[in-house]
Protein backbone atom coordinates (compact mmCIF):
# COMPACT_ATOMS: atom_id res chain seq x y z
CA UNK A 1 0.00 0.00 0.00
CA UNK A 2 1.51 3.26 -1.14
CA UNK A 3 1.00 6.10 1.39
CA UNK A 4 3.43 8.90 0.57
CA UNK A 5 4.97 10.77 3.50
CA UNK A 6 4.48 14.28 2.17
CA UNK A 7 0.66 14.16 1.87
CA UNK A 8 -2.34 14.60 4.17
CA UNK A 9 -5.30 12.20 4.15
CA UNK A 10 -9.02 12.03 4.91
CA UNK A 11 -11.20 9.25 6.29
CA UNK A 12 -12.90 9.16 2.85
CA UNK A 13 -9.57 8.13 1.31
CA UNK A 14 -8.61 11.37 -0.36
CA UNK A 15 -5.13 12.86 -0.34
CA UNK A 16 -4.20 16.54 -0.25
CA UNK A 17 -0.91 18.09 -1.35
CA UNK A 18 -0.73 21.70 -0.15
CA UNK A 19 1.37 24.28 -1.93
CA UNK A 20 1.04 27.62 -0.18
CA UNK A 21 -2.69 28.52 -0.32
CA UNK A 22 -3.65 26.04 -3.03
CA UNK A 23 -3.76 22.26 -2.96
CA UNK A 24 -4.00 19.26 -5.25
CA UNK A 25 -6.57 16.61 -4.32
CA UNK A 26 -6.90 13.00 -5.40
CA UNK A 27 -7.94 9.60 -4.08
CA UNK A 28 -5.55 7.24 -2.35
CA UNK A 29 -3.96 4.06 -3.59
CA UNK A 30 -6.26 2.18 -1.22
CA UNK A 31 -9.34 3.90 -2.70
CA UNK A 32 -8.41 3.17 -6.32
CA UNK A 33 -7.80 -0.47 -5.38
CA UNK A 34 -11.19 -0.74 -3.71
CA UNK A 35 -12.97 0.83 -6.68
CA UNK A 36 -11.22 -1.29 -9.30
CA UNK A 37 -10.92 -0.27 -12.96
CA UNK A 38 -11.98 3.36 -13.19
CA UNK A 39 -14.09 4.17 -16.24
CA UNK A 40 -14.44 7.89 -15.80
CA UNK A 41 -14.19 10.74 -13.37
CA UNK A 42 -16.93 13.32 -13.46
CA UNK A 43 -16.26 16.76 -12.01
CA UNK A 44 -18.61 19.61 -12.89
CA UNK A 45 -17.90 21.91 -9.97
CA UNK A 46 -14.93 23.88 -11.30
CA UNK A 47 -15.30 27.52 -10.25
CA UNK A 48 -17.54 26.68 -7.31
CA UNK A 49 -16.78 27.45 -3.68
CA UNK A 50 -17.45 24.30 -1.65
CA UNK A 51 -17.22 23.45 2.01
CA UNK A 52 -15.32 20.62 3.61
CA UNK A 53 -17.30 17.40 3.10
CA UNK A 54 -19.27 18.64 0.07
CA UNK A 55 -19.44 16.37 -2.98
CA UNK A 56 -17.30 17.80 -5.80
CA UNK A 57 -17.65 14.92 -8.26
CA UNK A 58 -18.06 11.21 -8.77
CA UNK A 59 -15.80 8.43 -9.89
CA UNK A 60 -17.28 5.55 -11.87
CA UNK A 61 -15.60 2.16 -11.84
CA UNK A 62 -16.78 -0.91 -13.74
CA UNK A 63 -18.71 -2.26 -10.75
CA UNK A 64 -19.20 0.73 -8.50
CA UNK A 65 -19.60 4.46 -8.29
CA UNK A 66 -18.31 6.67 -5.52
CA UNK A 67 -18.74 10.33 -4.61
CA UNK A 68 -15.71 12.57 -4.24
CA UNK A 69 -15.71 14.76 -1.13
CA UNK A 70 -13.97 18.07 -0.52
CA UNK A 71 -11.22 17.29 2.01
CA UNK A 72 -11.19 20.97 3.05
CA UNK A 73 -13.17 24.10 2.17
CA UNK A 74 -12.15 26.02 -0.91
CA UNK A 75 -12.81 27.01 -4.51
CA UNK A 76 -12.18 24.59 -7.38
CA UNK A 77 -9.61 26.20 -9.65
CA UNK A 78 -9.30 23.39 -12.17
CA UNK A 79 -9.82 19.69 -12.72
CA UNK A 80 -7.36 17.26 -14.22
CA UNK A 81 -8.47 17.39 -17.87
CA UNK A 82 -6.16 14.50 -18.69
CA UNK A 83 -8.50 12.14 -16.86
CA UNK A 84 -11.14 12.63 -19.58
CA UNK A 85 -9.05 10.56 -21.96
CA UNK A 86 -7.05 8.47 -19.47
CA UNK A 87 -9.16 7.85 -16.35
CA UNK A 88 -7.05 4.73 -15.72
CA UNK A 89 -4.30 7.09 -14.49
CA UNK A 90 -6.20 7.12 -11.19
CA UNK A 91 -5.53 3.39 -10.93
CA UNK A 92 -1.95 3.42 -12.13
CA UNK A 93 -0.70 6.69 -10.63
CA UNK A 94 -3.12 7.79 -7.90
CA UNK A 95 -0.74 10.35 -6.38
CA UNK A 96 0.68 11.67 -9.64
CA UNK A 97 -1.03 11.92 -13.02
CA UNK A 98 -4.22 10.63 -11.36
CA UNK A 99 -4.76 13.83 -9.36
CA UNK A 100 -8.33 15.17 -9.60
CA UNK A 101 -8.69 18.84 -8.71
CA UNK A 102 -6.68 21.89 -7.69
CA UNK A 103 -8.36 24.08 -5.11
CA UNK A 104 -7.89 27.53 -3.64
CA UNK A 105 -7.85 26.95 0.10
CA UNK A 106 -10.14 28.95 2.37
CA UNK A 107 -7.92 28.14 5.30
CA UNK A 108 -4.58 26.40 4.75
CA UNK A 109 -4.56 25.30 8.39
CA UNK A 110 -7.45 22.94 7.55
CA UNK A 111 -5.00 20.85 5.56
CA UNK A 112 -2.60 20.49 8.46
CA UNK A 113 -5.48 19.24 10.61
CA UNK A 114 -6.08 16.26 8.28
CA UNK A 115 -4.63 12.83 8.95
CA UNK A 116 -0.90 12.32 8.78
CA UNK A 117 0.41 9.30 6.82
CA UNK A 118 0.74 7.37 10.09
CA UNK A 119 -2.77 8.27 11.17
CA UNK A 120 -4.12 7.23 7.77
CA UNK A 121 -2.22 3.94 7.99
CA UNK A 122 -3.90 3.36 11.35
CA UNK A 123 -7.27 4.33 9.84
CA UNK A 124 -6.77 1.54 7.29
CA UNK A 125 -5.85 -0.87 10.07
CA UNK A 126 -2.32 -1.33 8.71
Amino acid at each position, binding site marked *: MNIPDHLRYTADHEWVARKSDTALVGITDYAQGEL*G*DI*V*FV*EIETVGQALRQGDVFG*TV*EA*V*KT*VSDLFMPVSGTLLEKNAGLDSTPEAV*NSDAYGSGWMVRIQLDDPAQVDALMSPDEYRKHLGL
Partner: protein
Amino acid sequence: MEKALLLTPLHPVHIQLGARMMPFAGYDMPLSYSGIRNEHLSVRNACGLFDVSHMGQFRVEGGGALNFLQHITTNDVARLKIRQAQYSCIPHPDGGIVDDLLVYRLAEQQYMLVVNASRVDEVADVLHAYAGADCSILNISEETALLALQGPMAVDILEACTTEAVRELAYYHFVTGVVDGVEGILISATGYTGAGGFELYIPRASAVKIWDALMKAGAVYGLLPCGLGARDTLRLEKGYCLNGYELSYSSGPVEARLDWIVRYNKDFIHKNLYLSKKTGGCDRYLVGFEMVDKGIPRHDFDIMNESGQKIGVVSSGSESPSTGKLIGLGFVDSDHQNEGSSLWINIRGRSLKAKVVKLPFV
Protein backbone atom coordinates in the same frame (compact mmCIF):
# COMPACT_ATOMS: atom_id res chain seq x y z
CA MET B 1 -25.95 -13.43 14.35
CA GLU B 2 -24.67 -13.36 10.80
CA LYS B 3 -24.33 -16.73 9.20
CA ALA B 4 -20.75 -17.71 8.41
CA LEU B 5 -19.95 -17.60 4.71
CA LEU B 6 -19.58 -20.90 2.93
CA LEU B 7 -16.28 -21.67 1.23
CA THR B 8 -15.65 -23.44 -2.05
CA PRO B 9 -12.79 -25.97 -2.15
CA LEU B 10 -10.77 -23.36 -4.10
CA HIS B 11 -11.06 -20.76 -1.34
CA PRO B 12 -7.45 -21.14 -0.10
CA VAL B 13 -6.25 -20.75 -3.70
CA HIS B 14 -8.16 -17.48 -4.10
CA ILE B 15 -6.71 -16.12 -0.87
CA GLN B 16 -3.21 -17.16 -1.89
CA LEU B 17 -3.66 -15.43 -5.25
CA GLY B 18 -4.65 -12.24 -3.43
CA ALA B 19 -8.16 -12.13 -4.89
CA ARG B 20 -10.54 -9.38 -3.84
CA MET B 21 -13.25 -11.41 -2.13
CA MET B 22 -16.95 -10.64 -1.74
CA PRO B 23 -19.95 -12.37 -0.21
CA PHE B 24 -22.14 -13.83 -2.94
CA ALA B 25 -25.14 -16.11 -2.41
CA GLY B 26 -23.82 -17.09 1.01
CA TYR B 27 -20.31 -17.88 -0.24
CA ASP B 28 -17.06 -15.98 0.10
CA MET B 29 -16.24 -15.64 -3.61
CA PRO B 30 -13.53 -13.93 -5.68
CA LEU B 31 -14.72 -10.67 -7.30
CA SER B 32 -11.45 -10.21 -9.17
CA TYR B 33 -7.76 -11.02 -9.06
CA SER B 34 -5.98 -8.67 -11.48
CA GLY B 35 -8.83 -6.30 -12.33
CA ILE B 36 -12.19 -6.89 -13.98
CA ARG B 37 -11.19 -5.32 -17.29
CA ASN B 38 -7.97 -7.31 -17.52
CA GLU B 39 -9.74 -10.58 -16.72
CA HIS B 40 -12.61 -9.82 -19.08
CA LEU B 41 -10.29 -9.15 -22.02
CA SER B 42 -8.27 -12.24 -21.23
CA VAL B 43 -11.42 -14.36 -21.63
CA ARG B 44 -12.37 -12.67 -24.91
CA ASN B 45 -8.86 -12.89 -26.37
CA ALA B 46 -7.23 -15.90 -24.69
CA CYS B 47 -8.69 -17.72 -21.72
CA GLY B 48 -9.88 -17.35 -18.15
CA LEU B 49 -10.52 -19.81 -15.33
CA PHE B 50 -13.45 -19.24 -12.98
CA ASP B 51 -14.34 -20.99 -9.75
CA VAL B 52 -18.12 -21.25 -9.84
CA SER B 53 -18.37 -24.03 -7.29
CA HIS B 54 -21.00 -22.05 -5.43
CA MET B 55 -23.55 -23.15 -8.02
CA GLY B 56 -25.94 -25.93 -7.04
CA GLN B 57 -26.44 -29.36 -8.58
CA PHE B 58 -29.18 -31.94 -8.20
CA ARG B 59 -29.24 -35.46 -9.54
CA VAL B 60 -32.68 -36.63 -10.62
CA GLU B 61 -33.18 -40.25 -11.61
CA GLY B 62 -35.73 -42.98 -12.03
CA GLY B 63 -38.45 -44.16 -14.37
CA GLY B 64 -40.45 -40.99 -13.73
CA ALA B 65 -37.56 -38.54 -14.12
CA LEU B 66 -38.38 -37.46 -17.67
CA ASN B 67 -42.06 -36.78 -17.03
CA PHE B 68 -41.22 -35.02 -13.79
CA LEU B 69 -38.69 -32.68 -15.44
CA GLN B 70 -41.06 -32.05 -18.34
CA HIS B 71 -43.61 -30.94 -15.77
CA ILE B 72 -41.44 -28.51 -13.78
CA THR B 73 -39.25 -27.01 -16.55
CA THR B 74 -40.24 -25.11 -19.68
CA ASN B 75 -37.89 -26.53 -22.31
CA ASP B 76 -38.51 -29.91 -23.96
CA VAL B 77 -36.52 -32.44 -21.94
CA ALA B 78 -37.58 -35.23 -24.31
CA ARG B 79 -35.37 -33.71 -26.98
CA LEU B 80 -32.25 -34.20 -24.84
CA LYS B 81 -29.95 -37.01 -25.90
CA ILE B 82 -27.59 -38.64 -23.44
CA ARG B 83 -24.47 -36.41 -23.08
CA GLN B 84 -26.42 -33.32 -24.05
CA ALA B 85 -27.39 -30.28 -21.95
CA GLN B 86 -30.23 -27.80 -22.22
CA TYR B 87 -30.93 -24.29 -20.91
CA SER B 88 -34.34 -24.01 -19.26
CA CYS B 89 -36.23 -22.52 -16.36
CA ILE B 90 -38.58 -23.43 -13.53
CA PRO B 91 -41.69 -21.22 -13.56
CA HIS B 92 -42.82 -19.33 -10.47
CA PRO B 93 -46.50 -18.81 -9.54
CA ASP B 94 -45.96 -15.03 -9.81
CA GLY B 95 -45.40 -15.39 -13.57
CA GLY B 96 -41.61 -15.32 -13.59
CA ILE B 97 -39.16 -17.98 -12.58
CA VAL B 98 -37.89 -19.77 -9.51
CA ASP B 99 -34.61 -20.18 -11.37
CA ASP B 100 -33.02 -20.60 -14.75
CA LEU B 101 -30.99 -23.78 -14.99
CA LEU B 102 -29.12 -26.31 -17.09
CA VAL B 103 -30.54 -29.80 -17.49
CA TYR B 104 -27.96 -32.48 -18.31
CA ARG B 105 -29.01 -35.91 -19.45
CA LEU B 106 -26.46 -38.23 -17.83
CA ALA B 107 -28.03 -41.58 -18.72
CA GLU B 108 -31.29 -43.05 -19.99
CA GLN B 109 -33.17 -42.19 -16.80
CA GLN B 110 -30.66 -39.95 -15.04
CA TYR B 111 -30.36 -36.15 -15.18
CA MET B 112 -28.38 -33.40 -13.47
CA LEU B 113 -29.81 -29.96 -12.83
CA VAL B 114 -27.46 -27.00 -12.36
CA VAL B 115 -28.98 -24.03 -10.57
CA ASN B 116 -27.96 -20.68 -9.14
CA ALA B 117 -26.37 -20.81 -5.68
CA SER B 118 -28.92 -18.38 -4.27
CA ARG B 119 -31.81 -20.59 -5.40
CA VAL B 120 -30.68 -24.05 -4.28
CA ASP B 121 -33.12 -24.23 -1.37
CA GLU B 122 -36.06 -22.91 -3.36
CA VAL B 123 -35.38 -25.27 -6.24
CA ALA B 124 -35.13 -28.15 -3.76
CA ASP B 125 -38.56 -27.19 -2.41
CA VAL B 126 -40.08 -27.26 -5.90
CA LEU B 127 -38.40 -30.56 -6.75
CA HIS B 128 -39.69 -32.23 -3.62
CA ALA B 129 -43.14 -30.72 -3.99
CA TYR B 130 -43.68 -32.20 -7.47
CA ALA B 131 -41.59 -35.40 -7.53
CA GLY B 132 -43.42 -38.70 -7.44
CA ALA B 133 -42.28 -41.98 -5.97
CA ASP B 134 -40.86 -43.03 -9.36
CA CYS B 135 -38.04 -40.52 -9.23
CA SER B 136 -35.34 -39.74 -6.70
CA ILE B 137 -33.74 -36.37 -6.02
CA LEU B 138 -30.28 -35.86 -4.59
CA ASN B 139 -28.70 -32.51 -3.81
CA ILE B 140 -25.04 -32.97 -4.83
CA SER B 141 -24.07 -29.28 -4.55
CA GLU B 142 -21.72 -29.72 -1.61
CA GLU B 143 -19.66 -32.53 -3.10
CA THR B 144 -19.43 -30.96 -6.57
CA ALA B 145 -16.91 -28.32 -7.56
CA LEU B 146 -17.40 -26.42 -10.81
CA LEU B 147 -14.68 -24.71 -12.84
CA ALA B 148 -15.39 -22.70 -15.98
CA LEU B 149 -12.52 -22.57 -18.48
CA GLN B 150 -13.64 -19.92 -20.95
CA GLY B 151 -12.18 -18.31 -24.05
CA PRO B 152 -10.78 -19.13 -27.50
CA MET B 153 -7.72 -20.92 -26.03
CA ALA B 154 -9.76 -23.10 -23.66
CA VAL B 155 -9.71 -26.12 -25.95
CA ASP B 156 -5.92 -26.05 -26.32
CA ILE B 157 -5.46 -25.79 -22.57
CA LEU B 158 -7.95 -28.53 -21.79
CA GLU B 159 -6.42 -30.84 -24.40
CA ALA B 160 -3.13 -30.59 -22.55
CA CYS B 161 -4.84 -32.04 -19.46
CA THR B 162 -7.05 -34.77 -20.91
CA THR B 163 -7.14 -37.44 -23.60
CA GLU B 164 -10.87 -36.96 -24.13
CA ALA B 165 -11.83 -35.63 -27.57
CA VAL B 166 -12.82 -32.23 -26.22
CA ARG B 167 -12.17 -30.44 -29.52
CA GLU B 168 -14.95 -32.47 -31.12
CA LEU B 169 -17.40 -31.72 -28.32
CA ALA B 170 -20.35 -29.77 -29.74
CA TYR B 171 -21.83 -26.78 -27.91
CA TYR B 172 -24.12 -27.89 -25.06
CA HIS B 173 -22.77 -31.43 -25.15
CA PHE B 174 -20.60 -33.16 -22.60
CA VAL B 175 -18.41 -36.16 -21.97
CA THR B 176 -17.36 -37.81 -18.72
CA GLY B 177 -13.71 -38.71 -18.48
CA VAL B 178 -10.25 -38.28 -17.00
CA VAL B 179 -8.68 -34.85 -16.47
CA ASP B 180 -5.16 -34.67 -15.06
CA GLY B 181 -5.46 -38.28 -13.88
CA VAL B 182 -8.73 -37.69 -12.03
CA GLU B 183 -11.59 -39.91 -13.17
CA GLY B 184 -15.25 -39.04 -13.44
CA ILE B 185 -14.93 -35.40 -14.49
CA LEU B 186 -17.95 -34.16 -16.43
CA ILE B 187 -16.57 -31.96 -19.23
CA SER B 188 -19.29 -29.76 -20.68
CA ALA B 189 -19.01 -27.46 -23.70
CA THR B 190 -21.00 -24.73 -21.98
CA GLY B 191 -20.45 -21.46 -20.16
CA TYR B 192 -21.99 -18.05 -19.60
CA THR B 193 -19.37 -15.77 -21.11
CA GLY B 194 -20.13 -16.11 -24.83
CA ALA B 195 -16.42 -16.74 -25.39
CA GLY B 196 -16.62 -20.51 -25.86
CA GLY B 197 -14.96 -23.03 -23.61
CA PHE B 198 -15.86 -25.63 -21.04
CA GLU B 199 -17.31 -26.19 -17.62
CA LEU B 200 -15.85 -29.00 -15.53
CA TYR B 201 -17.86 -30.72 -12.79
CA ILE B 202 -15.32 -32.13 -10.35
CA PRO B 203 -15.48 -34.14 -7.11
CA ARG B 204 -14.80 -31.59 -4.38
CA ALA B 205 -11.58 -33.26 -3.19
CA SER B 206 -9.96 -32.94 -6.64
CA ALA B 207 -10.88 -29.32 -7.34
CA VAL B 208 -7.53 -27.78 -6.36
CA LYS B 209 -5.59 -30.41 -8.31
CA ILE B 210 -7.56 -29.72 -11.50
CA TRP B 211 -7.36 -25.93 -11.02
CA ASP B 212 -3.58 -26.17 -10.66
CA ALA B 213 -3.25 -28.42 -13.71
CA LEU B 214 -5.30 -26.05 -15.87
CA MET B 215 -3.44 -22.97 -14.65
CA LYS B 216 -0.12 -24.67 -15.38
CA ALA B 217 -1.17 -25.82 -18.86
CA GLY B 218 -2.67 -22.40 -19.56
CA ALA B 219 0.35 -20.31 -18.59
CA VAL B 220 1.72 -20.23 -22.15
CA TYR B 221 -1.70 -19.20 -23.49
CA GLY B 222 -2.09 -16.31 -21.08
CA LEU B 223 -4.71 -18.03 -18.92
CA LEU B 224 -5.78 -15.84 -16.00
CA PRO B 225 -7.84 -16.61 -12.92
CA CYS B 226 -11.09 -14.65 -13.25
CA GLY B 227 -13.67 -13.57 -10.71
CA LEU B 228 -17.39 -12.92 -10.59
CA GLY B 229 -16.89 -9.31 -11.72
CA ALA B 230 -15.63 -10.37 -15.14
CA ARG B 231 -18.20 -13.14 -15.29
CA ASP B 232 -20.89 -10.47 -14.97
CA THR B 233 -19.47 -8.06 -17.58
CA LEU B 234 -18.89 -10.96 -19.99
CA ARG B 235 -22.47 -12.19 -19.76
CA LEU B 236 -23.80 -8.63 -19.98
CA GLU B 237 -21.92 -7.95 -23.24
CA LYS B 238 -23.64 -11.02 -24.68
CA GLY B 239 -27.05 -9.95 -23.37
CA TYR B 240 -27.38 -13.06 -21.20
CA CYS B 241 -29.93 -12.83 -18.40
CA LEU B 242 -29.06 -13.16 -14.74
CA ASN B 243 -31.54 -14.29 -12.11
CA GLY B 244 -32.12 -11.47 -9.65
CA TYR B 245 -31.55 -8.88 -12.39
CA GLU B 246 -33.30 -9.69 -15.69
CA LEU B 247 -35.15 -12.63 -14.20
CA SER B 248 -37.17 -12.79 -10.99
CA TYR B 249 -40.33 -14.33 -9.51
CA SER B 250 -42.38 -11.98 -11.68
CA SER B 251 -40.09 -11.60 -14.70
CA GLY B 252 -39.61 -14.65 -16.85
CA PRO B 253 -38.63 -15.84 -20.30
CA VAL B 254 -41.46 -14.09 -22.13
CA GLU B 255 -40.55 -10.51 -21.21
CA ALA B 256 -36.82 -11.34 -21.10
CA ARG B 257 -36.96 -12.65 -24.70
CA LEU B 258 -36.00 -16.18 -23.79
CA ASP B 259 -39.04 -17.58 -25.54
CA TRP B 260 -36.92 -20.25 -27.21
CA ILE B 261 -36.61 -22.09 -23.88
CA VAL B 262 -40.38 -22.34 -23.51
CA ARG B 263 -42.20 -25.18 -25.30
CA TYR B 264 -45.89 -24.48 -25.37
CA ASN B 265 -46.68 -27.81 -26.99
CA LYS B 266 -46.19 -29.58 -23.65
CA ASP B 267 -47.61 -29.06 -20.17
CA PHE B 268 -45.59 -27.47 -17.40
CA ILE B 269 -46.32 -25.75 -14.11
CA HIS B 270 -47.86 -22.26 -14.34
CA LYS B 271 -48.00 -22.56 -18.12
CA ASN B 272 -51.23 -20.53 -18.19
CA LEU B 273 -49.37 -17.49 -16.82
CA TYR B 274 -46.75 -17.72 -19.57
CA LEU B 275 -49.39 -18.30 -22.21
CA SER B 276 -51.39 -15.25 -21.24
CA LYS B 277 -48.24 -13.10 -21.39
CA LYS B 278 -47.36 -14.55 -24.76
CA THR B 279 -50.78 -14.09 -26.30
CA GLY B 280 -51.82 -10.91 -24.46
CA GLY B 281 -48.38 -9.31 -24.55
CA CYS B 282 -46.30 -7.99 -21.67
CA ASP B 283 -46.30 -4.43 -20.36
CA ARG B 284 -42.55 -4.24 -20.67
CA TYR B 285 -39.86 -6.09 -22.58
CA LEU B 286 -36.15 -6.49 -22.12
CA VAL B 287 -33.98 -4.36 -24.41
CA GLY B 288 -30.29 -3.65 -24.73
CA PHE B 289 -29.25 -0.02 -24.79
CA GLU B 290 -26.12 1.99 -25.21
CA MET B 291 -25.47 5.35 -23.58
CA VAL B 292 -25.28 8.37 -25.87
CA ASP B 293 -24.43 10.66 -22.96
CA LYS B 294 -21.67 9.76 -20.55
CA GLY B 295 -22.88 7.79 -17.56
CA ILE B 296 -23.04 4.23 -16.38
CA PRO B 297 -26.54 2.81 -15.99
CA ARG B 298 -26.87 0.69 -12.87
CA HIS B 299 -29.40 -1.86 -11.62
CA ASP B 300 -32.74 -0.25 -10.60
CA PHE B 301 -32.14 3.16 -12.21
CA ASP B 302 -35.31 4.58 -13.80
CA ILE B 303 -35.72 4.76 -17.58
CA MET B 304 -37.74 7.69 -18.94
CA ASN B 305 -39.13 8.98 -22.21
CA GLU B 306 -38.36 12.37 -23.73
CA SER B 307 -40.88 14.15 -21.51
CA GLY B 308 -39.51 12.60 -18.34
CA GLN B 309 -42.20 10.00 -17.71
CA LYS B 310 -41.00 6.71 -16.34
CA ILE B 311 -41.21 3.99 -18.98
CA GLY B 312 -38.94 1.34 -17.50
CA VAL B 313 -36.11 0.31 -15.28
CA VAL B 314 -32.47 -0.73 -15.73
CA SER B 315 -31.74 -4.35 -14.84
CA SER B 316 -27.95 -4.41 -15.44
CA GLY B 317 -25.35 -1.95 -16.68
CA SER B 318 -21.63 -1.46 -17.01
CA GLU B 319 -18.86 -0.22 -19.18
CA SER B 320 -18.31 -2.82 -21.89
CA PRO B 321 -14.66 -3.74 -21.37
CA SER B 322 -14.44 -4.97 -24.98
CA THR B 323 -15.66 -1.78 -26.65
CA GLY B 324 -15.46 0.91 -23.99
CA LYS B 325 -19.13 1.68 -24.60
CA LEU B 326 -21.48 2.21 -21.67
CA ILE B 327 -24.15 -0.46 -21.97
CA GLY B 328 -27.19 -1.70 -20.16
CA LEU B 329 -30.13 -4.07 -20.14
CA GLY B 330 -33.49 -2.89 -18.99
CA PHE B 331 -37.23 -3.37 -19.25
CA VAL B 332 -39.15 -0.72 -21.18
CA ASP B 333 -42.76 -0.19 -22.25
CA SER B 334 -43.38 -2.06 -25.47
CA ASP B 335 -43.67 1.11 -27.59
CA HIS B 336 -40.05 2.01 -26.76
CA GLN B 337 -38.45 -1.33 -27.50
CA ASN B 338 -37.51 -0.81 -31.15
CA GLU B 339 -33.90 -0.52 -32.17
CA GLY B 340 -32.88 3.14 -32.31
CA SER B 341 -35.54 4.32 -29.83
CA SER B 342 -34.28 7.07 -27.54
CA LEU B 343 -34.34 6.48 -23.79
CA TRP B 344 -33.28 8.67 -20.90
CA ILE B 345 -31.68 7.06 -17.85
CA ASN B 346 -31.96 8.74 -14.47
CA ILE B 347 -28.37 8.52 -13.28
CA ARG B 348 -28.29 9.97 -9.78
CA GLY B 349 -30.73 12.75 -10.60
CA ARG B 350 -29.43 13.53 -14.08
CA SER B 351 -31.34 12.50 -17.17
CA LEU B 352 -28.82 11.01 -19.60
CA LYS B 353 -29.65 9.90 -23.12
CA ALA B 354 -29.36 6.34 -24.38
CA LYS B 355 -30.58 4.43 -27.41
CA VAL B 356 -31.94 0.94 -27.89
CA VAL B 357 -29.49 -1.32 -29.74
CA LYS B 358 -29.53 -4.86 -31.01
CA LEU B 359 -28.32 -7.64 -28.72
CA PRO B 360 -25.71 -8.97 -28.19
CA PHE B 361 -23.55 -5.89 -27.66
CA VAL B 362 -20.46 -7.70 -28.93
